[in-house]
């Protein structure tokens, strides 16, 4: 690594200014990232004119519901697993957590329906679709572990029934649904991190590729943007 001082420019206008050499892993990574997702794409002030339907709000709404899930979950976990049985506020927080999860899945599925009928994987957006499905699957696992932590009759029954599916595929020994300690690790750390990471990747992919144009769309002369200011 060179210790020589370099006349590098800090200008953010282009991925790397003409005079800056890229000579490190970090530099190469930065150049690649900024090429794929420059700030204007990450946080735009406009969107294509065809994004004009209420179906487009369901992705954002799912994210909002996920936010409520996480916040209410934090309150529940910080107060310990028995708190909500005896505290009025605890019980209300538990209700918020339950309904935000129901809303999350409801909104996410309507979002999925919309994306399917729009064939949103077109134009190289297959990874956006795949990460979306993975997010759905991991969310189902996260919800399942949540039900196991209720420390009431429902969690007893779900543990008793759920063990059969897991044992049948040989993973029940490592994923013991009746072991509260294990299930807490999955539900409040590992799976939220998993869901979070996949969702972040999914959203970034949408920003990288842009919202998919209509099927059979064209850019007509009349359709030309009057130019950004």
């Amino acid at each position, binding site marked *: 690594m060179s210790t020589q001082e370099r006349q590098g420019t800090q200008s953010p206008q282009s991925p790397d200014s003409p005079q800056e050499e890229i000579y490190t892993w970090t530099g190469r990574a930065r150049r690649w990232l900024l090429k794929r997702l420059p700030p204007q794409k990450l946080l735009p002030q406009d969107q294509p004119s065809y994004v*004009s*339907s*209420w*179906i487009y*709000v*369901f992705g954002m709404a799912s994210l909002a519901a996920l936010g409520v899930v996480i916040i209410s979950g934090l309150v529940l976990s910080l107060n310990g697993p028995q708190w909500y049985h005896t505290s009025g506020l605890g*019980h*209300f927080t538990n*209700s918020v957590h339950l309904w935000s999860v*129901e809303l999350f899945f*409801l909104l996410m*599925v*309507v979002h999925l*329906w*919309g994306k399917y009928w729009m064939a949103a994987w077109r134009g190289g957006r297959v990874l956006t679709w795949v990460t979306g499905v993975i997010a759905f699957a991991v969310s189902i696992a996260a919800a399942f572990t949540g039900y196991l932590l209720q420390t009431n009759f429902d969690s007893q029954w779900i543990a008793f029934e759920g063990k059969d599916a897991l044992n049948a595929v040989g993973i029940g020994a490592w994923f013991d649904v009746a072991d509260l300690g294990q299930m807490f690790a999955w539900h409040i750390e590992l799976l939220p991190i998993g869901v979070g990471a996949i969702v972040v990747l999914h959203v970034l992919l949408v920003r990288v590729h842009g919202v998919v144009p209509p099927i059979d769309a064209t850019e007509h002369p009349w359709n030309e943007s*009057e*130019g950004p*200011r």
Partner: protein
Amino acid sequence: MDIVASAPGIYLGWGAVTIQLGHLIVIVVMLVLFALALLLPFPNARRRR
């Protein structure tokens, strides 16, 4: 507050299929939201330029 949640579940049944009322409502809400999202007019954005 919990009168609804703690009451015995309301189950509707036709032959082999029984569905909890809450689930039926969820399904109907999803279909209605999807239909509304497709059909309701979207306001034209204000254009700066």
